[in-house]
């Protein structure tokens, strides 16, 4: 089978303009290219496969429904990252009342329930610790760390996706990395207590009803 050599932007344009089989093929190719990436971001955001599945599905449905609004001002990947982050943030707000369920089940990471060698168990516990630490960061720090440090995206693209200044992205990523170090090894960062969650709300944090508030 010949690989599809069209760029992402050509695919989305084909999806919007075409009908029937041609349209479906274009969208299937986009899903093939982005499903894993979107899923990975969503999973690292929530630390939970069920939430990651919900967020991934909602992200791709949103892409499908709003494909016509993509103007090509940025790369398609940038737009998809933006939609993914917004979906994750929205879902997190809806889940806010649900108690945090830290990932405890080794099977969550091991896939099928197979007996693990000691070394594999150790590695899995480290992964669990990292995932747990990620979950303790504020939304923006976690998002930036996922996109930059885990997904390997550049500062500029992430800044464009989240509509933040590049300098802010750099600074927040560095701060998040330092926070992760404290969360993973509080004794190793001896002299002070672990940093509190960011005092400033993230740019995508759900605002609390402001001083105006609902009428009495």
């Amino acid at each position: 089978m010949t690989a599809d050599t069209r760029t992402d932007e050509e695919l989305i344009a084909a999806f919007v303009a075409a009908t029937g089989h041609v349209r479906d093929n274009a969208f299937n190719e986009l899903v093939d290219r982005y499903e894993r990436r979107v899923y990975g971001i969503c999973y690292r955001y929530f630390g939970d496969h069920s939430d990651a599945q919900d967020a991934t599905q909602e992200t791709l449905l949103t892409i499908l429904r709003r494909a016509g609004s993509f103007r090509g001002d940025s790369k398609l990947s940038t737009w998809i990252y933006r939609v993914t982050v917004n979906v994750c943030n929205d879902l997190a707000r809806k889940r806010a009342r649900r108690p945090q369920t830290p990932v405890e089940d080794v099977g969550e990471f091991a896939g099928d329930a197979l007996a693990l060698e000691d070394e594999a168990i150790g590695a899995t516990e480290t992964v669990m610790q990292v995932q747990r630490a990620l979950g303790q960061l504020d939304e923006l720090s976690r998002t930036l760390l996922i996109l930059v440090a885990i997904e390997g995206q550049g500062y500029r693209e992430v800044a464009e996706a989240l509509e933040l200044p590049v300098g802010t992205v750099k600074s927040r990523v560095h701060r998040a990395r330092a926070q992760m170090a404290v969360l993973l090894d509080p004794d190793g960062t001896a002299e002070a207590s672990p940093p509190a969650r960011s005092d400033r709300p993230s740019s995508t944090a759900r605002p609390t009803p402001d001083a105006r508030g609902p009428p009495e």
Partner: protein
Amino acid sequence: MNVSANGEKLAAYLADELPADERAALEARLARDAALRRQLEAIQRSDAALAALPPVEPSPDFSRQLRATLREELARTDGADDELAARREQRRTRFLRGAGMAAAAAGIIGVASFGVASLLSGDDDTAEVTSRLSGPAEEALALVQVSDTDYDADSLEALTDGAVLDPEQLDELSQDEALDLAQRNTEQLRAFSEPLSSALQAPTDGAAVGTGQGEAPAGDDRGSGGVEEDVETAGDAARALDDPFADAHRCAAEILESAETLIPLLAEVATFEGEPAVLYLFASPSPDDGSFTRLEVWAVARADCTVLHFTQWEL
């Protein structure tokens, strides 16, 4: 220097993103400060742990189910345009029947400004009547809706589906355009129901009503106590006649008076957790830069405009 400042600088150092002078100063400190070196090593270990995270794969079952869902959505959107047109027609029909019943019950004659006089003759040909609507009335058809949906706190985001404007498009408006839209939609929300609300005072004060476009009915005293007084009266009459549109206007007035600029996107008369309510969807300015990137929903009781639920979220 506190931990956060240290940590951020150390992380930037490891990423080779410090200016040369700061780099040199930090290296000098690292040479003499064991605790700082421990912090640096901790960040290095943390970075390594992040980099070593295994890729996460969706399960094959999920991938299959996802593709099936997306195919269904593709098939559904093929008929979306036709469905949207059908929904708009249904909305017009509901409005006309509702307005017709309220107007007929109040004995209103000639609410000519909205061109619905033919309703009073019992003319049930809504298509013909629809064609006579123009200006604010026709636009307000989209803004104010009546439905039998019972909302709860978890389903309020569905209101965005019925908004007169896709909230995502608000981002494309300039500040002036947004303010203009806010003014127009607010006027529609008020102007739509006011003549009808005022006209509904007729059974109470005995005055003739509906004398023409924008004209206050005889006997209507707007000078003292003004709109609020009229609205309360209209509200009583509205409840007696079950006029949802007057309630939509009345409760909106309270919200809009207390607020900075809001863009009304929808006023849906429905129920909230079983209670008769009006649900308003507004776009409001973000505190960061004033752009209309925030949505808020107010669910208020039709009886007295008590706020039943309030929520807001960023687009």
